[in-house]
């Protein structure tokens, strides 16, 4: 059965080549392909009923896109979904290069269904408009923000520099409606400074772009300044590319496994680090928004170096996705294909990483601090932890 399923594309395409020469009003297709088509008979029936009877005109593409989206939604995995060709090309455009927007990073919970501002970029219009970390993004123009509409909301906020966008936030019990300017946003994904007592501090916001290279440069610069220990801050880091996590992990690790992923059939693939590492004590900071690659890197450094972890339990996204086109029209899907584990074989999905030292931000503290500000209670605790190690 499975074999047959896999062959779908091949079968369909084989026929496409044959079909070109067919002129009669009948077509002959392999039985195997015909059997595949039988699976969608009910859908075709529904489509016909709708086309004939629905009280308004319905576009068949809408129905087919809906079917594809519904098929993937039925898996009830928030990371598996369908992109229409339009949505996909839009998404790809946004991935390349800079963007114009209002300068916020958003974290969406599929459980509470809320989208929370996890970062306001320095010098951005959002900062100018007094948007705070922890504010809930409620509405963008006429779109009420939910996990389903967040991409639409983001698309609306992006646009031509100099234009404005109407955004409503919820802070406490208050609704704050703001008109925010769009501008070119400089997303600095890595920031660093030297703290008191020659303790280096690097904050990594996302595993994307040139972050691995920037990270290495900053690490070297801190080493040159005589750093004795490093605090690696992965709070609010939603993850990104596995390869960036591997490159950054490799800076601290000798030869060995950084993480491994396991497919449904139990086969496993290892991501490995190579020889040659910076040998320096590490304290890692995580919070409830540290996800995916952040957890993978934290798990590896803790398992293999015994790095201390400070903060609050991390998000718990321990699954890996592919993004891939599904046809020549440009429709695409994102699919969860594997689970990953720390080198010691600990699962992260739905669990997260529990810190060695739990430090929550005091109630009402939105965590908006300047880089390296020791008034930040979690950072202060991490620094304290480092002092213990250095002694």
């Amino acid at each position, binding site marked *: 059965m*499975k074999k047959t*399923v896999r*062959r*779908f*594309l*091949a*079968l*369909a*395409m084989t026929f496409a080549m044959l079909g070109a020469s067919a002129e009669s*009003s*009948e*077509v002959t*297709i*392999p*039985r195997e392909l015909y059997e*595949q*088509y039988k699976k*969608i*008979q*009910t*859908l*075709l*029936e*529904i489509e016909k009923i*709708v086309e004939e*009877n*629905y*009280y308004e005109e319905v576009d*068949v593409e809408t129905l087919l896109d*809906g*079917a*594809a*989206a*519904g*098929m*993937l*939604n039925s*898996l009830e995995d928030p990371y598996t979904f369908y992109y229409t060709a339009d949505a996909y090309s839009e998404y790809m455009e946004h*991935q390349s290069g800079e963007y114009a927007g209002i300068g916020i990073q958003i*974290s969406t919970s599929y459980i509470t269904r809320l989208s929370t501002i996890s970062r306001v970029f320095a010098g951005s219009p959002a900062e100018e408009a007094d948007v705070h970390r922890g504010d809930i993004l409620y509405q963008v123009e006429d779109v009420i923000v939910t996990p389903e509409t967040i991409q639409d909301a*983001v698309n609306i906020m992006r646009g031509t520099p100099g234009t404005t966008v109407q955004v409503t936030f919820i802070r406490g019990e208050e609704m704050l409606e703001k008109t925010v300017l769009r501008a070119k946003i400089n997303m600095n994904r890595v920031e660093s400074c030297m703290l008191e007592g020659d303790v280096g501090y690097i904050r990594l916001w996302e595993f994307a772009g040139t972050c691995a290279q920037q990270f290495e440069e900053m690490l070297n610069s801190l080493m040159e300044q005589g750093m004795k220990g490093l605090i690696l801050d992965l709070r609010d880091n939603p*993850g*990104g*590319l596995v*390869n960036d996590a591997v490159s950054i992990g490799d800076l601290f690790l000798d030869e060995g496994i950084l993480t491994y992923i396991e*497919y449904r059939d139990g086969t496993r693939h290892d991501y490995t680090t190579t020889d040659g590492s910076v040998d320096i004590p590490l304290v890692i900071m995580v919070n409830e928004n540290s*996800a*995916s690659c952040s957890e993978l890197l934290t798990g590896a450094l803790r398992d293999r170096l015994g790095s201390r972890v400070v903060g609050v339990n991390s*998000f718990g*996204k321990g699954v*890996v*996705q*592919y*993004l*891939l086109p599904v*046809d*020549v029209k440009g429709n695409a899907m994102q699919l*969860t*294909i*594997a689970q990953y584990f720390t080198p010691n074989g600990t699962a992260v999905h739905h669990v997260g990483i529990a810190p060695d030292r739990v430090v929550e931000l005091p109630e009402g503290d939105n965590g908006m601090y300047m880089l390296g500000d020791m008034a930040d209670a979690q950072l202060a605790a991490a620094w304290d932890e480092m002092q213990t190690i250095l002694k």
Partner: protein
Amino acid sequence: MKKILLVLSLLLVISMLSSCTALPVMGLRSIYRDAATETAAGTAAEGDTVTISAEEYEDLRKYDTLLQILAIVEENYYQDVDEGDLLEGAAYGMLDAIGDPYTFYYNPEEFEEMWEDDEGEYGGVGMLISANYETQLCTIIRTFSGSPAEAAGVMRGDILYKVEDVYVTADTLNDAVEIMRGTPDTDVKVTFLRDGEEIEKVLTRATITVNRVEAAMLDDEIGYLVIYEFAGDCADKFDEALDDLIAKGAKGLILDLRDNPGGWVSDAESMADRFLDEGVIYYTEYKDGSRQYSYSVDGKVDMPLVILINENSASSSEILTGALKDRADATVVGVQSYGKGIIQAVTGVGTEGAGMQLTIAQYFTPNGNKVHSIGITPDVEYALPEGDPGIYEMGDLKDPQLAKAYEVMQEKMKK
């Protein structure tokens, strides 16, 4: 071959959605290896072929993308999948995509249950719930007399907040209802919101008999008839109740359609016909502009009518109200009705007992008034005073709206 190469090169595309996505470069093989190597092998089935019409083939080919997704998921998803569930999900998604809250798919179990509901007897807790798709809130609009919900003090206007571990929204209401139903004498934990306060109750399921029609004489001359829903045998029950009221001397009738969400149009038709001679009850308009008229036949009960409606009176309630307002000189009292002026058809699909509901037409009152998104405007606007949740015994004249209807009827009968 060309197409496969294109796909492979696109695969190098990188993913990094804000919600944390990772792209391991390896593993690509597991998705496309088979497709690539089996292009040649694909013709292995040569000789074993099926001939179909070009038209049918064109229809089927539209689903290549969906079948491709199905194949990719079955091969690569990180957990076991069930093909039937995926195809069912596609059916839900297809009808969902239309964006009409009244058009949807029923899987075989849901479809069977839908028919059971119509019969009016089930194991449950005995509440009628109204879901608002805009606020997503689900409000209790009635507790059946003698039901566990009534016994537990559930009140009209309470918001259904949580059933066991399911948070109730318009989207999850079906799941919640499914949980509340079950074997009599078993318990279910239900949380309501009342004035912002959470009220948790453990309700014991019982066999619920849904009484959809109730009637009483308000005095020697004025009959009162409540229709809660157009379902099951309500049309027969309506006839019996009406005849009974007439036998008891009713010279005028107050018809209460408040909180009646609608139901089968045929029931509304037969009820309307009781008060109408030959003519139009309502007409529907299809997408091609064609119309279909529903006619009443001769022989009517001729008596003054007052109809009570509120913001939850919808669909068949509005058909009945519209017909009697336009043609039987009924006076409408209460609050602007819901405004659901579209009609659905329910049909089975496939071979496994699944079904679907589909909006097929808009309807209009005999005078050509549109109801959809508008509702029916009462002749006498009369809302419940603020803070009055409208929980009264059937026929209790302390109910301000009923009292108003009664007053209007008295005036009417003087003429």
